[in-house]
């Protein structure tokens, strides 16, 4: 059964693509989350409206539709993307819209009194945000960000529908070539789970590191 080891290699290649997608998607999602999350809290109507439109649109239409659009429709209007780019774009924008609400909620969860202390100390808007509000809010966001990252990891499985050779896709290939269903799917379930555990472990240890000395602060 030398064959299996070869196909395992194929699946591991898929795992690599999945990890790549998850990482790049997370970075994009993080950027979008802060842009749109802070946008929703802006004083300027235009920014608020833009952020709200982005969030509602990407949360409202299914990730599948976004993926198909990025892959099939954008090229028709002249925006040529590699499958990887299309995948990262759709996943990052989609998860970013959810995470934006996390950013907004976390910033708002920092009590009004912290904002007022900033005013009383004459800190500027940006100074207060940068030194007082965001450091505290980030700690509130972290656990939910961890969940979002796991959501993103799982959502990468749908990119197999646009022929990106991720874990799920490779499992399909192995299945077609070997005629065995159980083995490839059980293997990738375990791999996904290990990746998810890694994410939540990483986020939790980051959280512990950042929360040092803050006992009693967390809401």
């Amino acid at each position, binding site marked *: 059964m*030398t*064959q299996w*080891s*070869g*196909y395992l*290699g*194929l699946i591991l*290649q898929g795992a690599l693509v999945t990890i790549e997608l998850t990482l790049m998607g997370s970075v994009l999602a993080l950027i979008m989350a802060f842009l749109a999350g802070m946008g929703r809290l802006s004083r300027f109507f235009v920014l608020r409206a833009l952020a709200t439109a982005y969030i509602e649109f990407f949360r409202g239409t299914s990730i599948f539709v976004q993926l198909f659009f990025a*892959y*099939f*429709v954008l*090229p*028709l209007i002249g925006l*040529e993307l590699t*499958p990887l780019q299309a995948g990262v774009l759709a996943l990052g924008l989609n998860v970013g819209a959810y995470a934006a609400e996390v950013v907004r909620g976390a910033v708002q969860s920092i009590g009004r009194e912290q904002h007022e202390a900033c005013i009383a100390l004459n800190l500027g808007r940006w100074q207060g945000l940068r030194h007082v509000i965001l450091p505290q809010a980030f700690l509130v966001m972290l656990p939910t960000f961890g969940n979002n990252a796991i959501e993103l990891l799982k959502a990468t499985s749908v990119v197999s*529908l*646009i*022929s990106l*050779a991720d874990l799920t*896709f490779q499992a*399909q*290939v192995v*299945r*077609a*070539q*070997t*005629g065995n*269903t159980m083995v490839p799917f059980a293997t990738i379930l375990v791999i996904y789970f290990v990746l998810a555990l890694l994410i939540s472990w990483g986020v939790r240890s980051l959280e512990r590191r950042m929360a040092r000395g803050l006992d009693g602060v967390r809401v």
Partner: protein
Amino acid sequence: PGSADDSKLEQLKGQGFARVAIANEPPYTAVAADGKVSGAAPDVAREIFKRLGVADIVASISEYGAMIPGLQAGRFDVVTAGLFMKPERCAAVAYSEPVLCDAEAMLVKKGNPKGFKSYEDVAKDTSATIGAPGGGTEEKLALNAGVPRERVIVVPDGQSGLKMVQDGRIDAYSLPVLSINDLMKKANDPNLEVIAPVQGAPVYCDGAAFKKGDEALRDAFDVELVKMKKSGEFAKIIEPYGFSAAAAMSTTRDKLCAAK
């Protein structure tokens, strides 16, 4: 004439590879344990592009349904996936001369309990369901034979179709003969039976499918294809996979695209 078209080939030569869409369906396509893509269709394409001066092909596996839109969207330069020539498709893409020919087959339970011989038989039995790839030839044949939409189950891939027949979820699963044979070989299940060829279903041939507008590239491809057919190299490539070179040489694109 068509200098814009010529540039496509030049461009491919320049980048050193052509992007090819293939299906996840042996023996049209095969992926070895080391990840190397082979199979009848990609092997032919690889050889011809080499002769055209394009060093290699980069194959990406795609769903059938995504192939033509992907081609139109510029995701691939060519589709070599057992995408059979039919008038509607000929209108959507630019085909090369025929490459791989195959008749249709059905996978059923041992003894063919419902006695299917043709798609019309499936249509007549009001309790019968048939599986086929979404957007594939078999789906259209079944629908045209009068099987109502809700009895034509869209099955994502061959293994799923095989499994669904084994589990009794569908009464028949239809694919080209060689694909079904390959599935049978892997499954090695004595409780299954192949009906081939399906009566009344034409023998279809696929060709390499190019984007409309890339006719110059297609023509260049055809020139090499015809040469290979004549020299017998063509047969050497495809016959180990079970395809008949004679069948492909006995017909032409024009005939197939005009067929009703």
